[in-house]
């Protein structure tokens, strides 16, 4: 391989028609950690959350019923696989689709809980995620319009950076921030974490961390500041 991405060599690619997955040491590491966490989730059992009661000395155990636990583990595994896919995909639009899948599955993981305020937070998160699909896909479409391709490997070999590409990546960043619920939109997601059923909820957090790191890599590849 003679393609260099951000100073590291491409170890290998998986060519599936025009959908290309590529591996560098950097994203291979993130891919493996996402898969390892997903495997841990697939074999783990949910915790019982203990809440202190307000104004009394008693405790209250919040258990997750078997049905709800199964569907939540399934969605958490899907979320982990989507995260792993977003790490290695070499196609910008596939990346945005993986991010959208993460957003939808995050809503689903907390969708079956009984606390009204958690459902309220999930609803607000869902609204933001839906609005964020505008800059997400719009940014990808702007990059497609200004470069003529959505393959990250092909964009990497371009020699120019036009203002439209910078605008596109900015929109892409806004979209991913809204879709995964990071910094400005974090309030609703913090509320969602109060749901019982611990190891499965952590995938929401891990997926947003890994996706943001991967997004920064993509932004650097597209804009080539170095």
């Amino acid at each position, binding site marked *: 391989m003679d393609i260099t991405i951000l100073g590291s060599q491409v170890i290998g690619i998986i060519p599936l028609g025009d959908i290309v997955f590529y591996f560098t040491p950097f994203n291979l590491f993130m891919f493996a950690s996402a898969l390892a966490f997903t495997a841990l989730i697939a074999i783990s059992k949910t915790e019982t959350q203990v809440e202190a009661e307000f104004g009394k000395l008693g405790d209250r155990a919040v258990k997750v019923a078997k049905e709800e636990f199964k569907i939540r583990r399934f969605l958490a595994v899907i979320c982990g696989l989507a995260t792993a896919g977003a790490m290695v995909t070499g196609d910008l*639009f596939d990346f945005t689709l993986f991010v959208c899948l993460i957003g939808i599955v995050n809503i689903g993981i907390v*969708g079956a809980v009984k606390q009204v305020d958690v*459902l309220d937070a999930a609803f607000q998160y869902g609204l933001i995620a839906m609005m964020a699909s505008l800059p997400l896909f719009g940014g990808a479409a702007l990059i497609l319009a200004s470069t003529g391709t959505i393959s990250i490997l092909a964009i990497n070999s371009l020699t120019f950076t036009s203002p439209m590409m910078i605008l596109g990546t900015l929109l892409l960043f806004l979209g991913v921030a809204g879709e995964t619920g990071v910094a400005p939109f974090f309030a609703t997601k913090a509320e969602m974490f109060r749901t019982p059923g611990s190891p499965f909820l952590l995938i929401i957090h891990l997926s947003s961390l890994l996706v943001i790191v991967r997004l920064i890599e993509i932004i650097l590849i597209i804009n080539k500041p170095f």
Partner: protein
Amino acid sequence: MILVPDVVSPIVVGLYAPAIFVGIIVALIGLFGISVEKNDLHVLILTDIVGIAMLVFVSAVGTDLAESLILPGLVVELAEILAISEILMSREMRKSGKSVDLLPTPLHFDMEILQTAPIFVAIILIAYGAFLSGFTGGVIAGAGILFYSLSIKVRGVPSGVWDGLAGVSGLAWCLWLVGFLVLFVFPQYWLLGLMLAAFGVFIKVAFKAGLIGIMNREEFKKE
């Protein structure tokens, strides 16, 4: 730098910037509506306008690739609005303490044709759909199955049939996926992949009606 080939007329190329501006204006209208509106249901519906602005952005590119990107964008949009409306419904149910059926208005059809001719009409539609195959055929055959399920509901729905339909629909979807995988991995067997995908999607779209049948059964409390 202009990437557009010379055969494309300059009018079409010049439409790109106006289309982007239209998208921005549509998005601003939607966002303004969301900021003013206080009712949760209305906010949810207004959010769909922002999603349409996203489709305008993608379709403004106007190439084959953009065309193939619109469909996943639309699907993502629909999936999100379904997920959020489920959340909204379950929140309102928890608040009010009442549970609501999936199909709140029971369907009452008292038509002669539903009693006498369902199997004949359904068979014609399904046969014509099988002849067409692909998405279009799936829709027509699905209409046949839907008609059959609606009419047979007058007499009573057999509970086991719908589970079978949903199962076959899932298997056909796998067939569709396998067909696509064949296209990508072994391009030389494209005909096999094409046929697998065409008939997989035909059966899958047709048996979407099975899901409606499941809804009916839930409504009838497992007859």
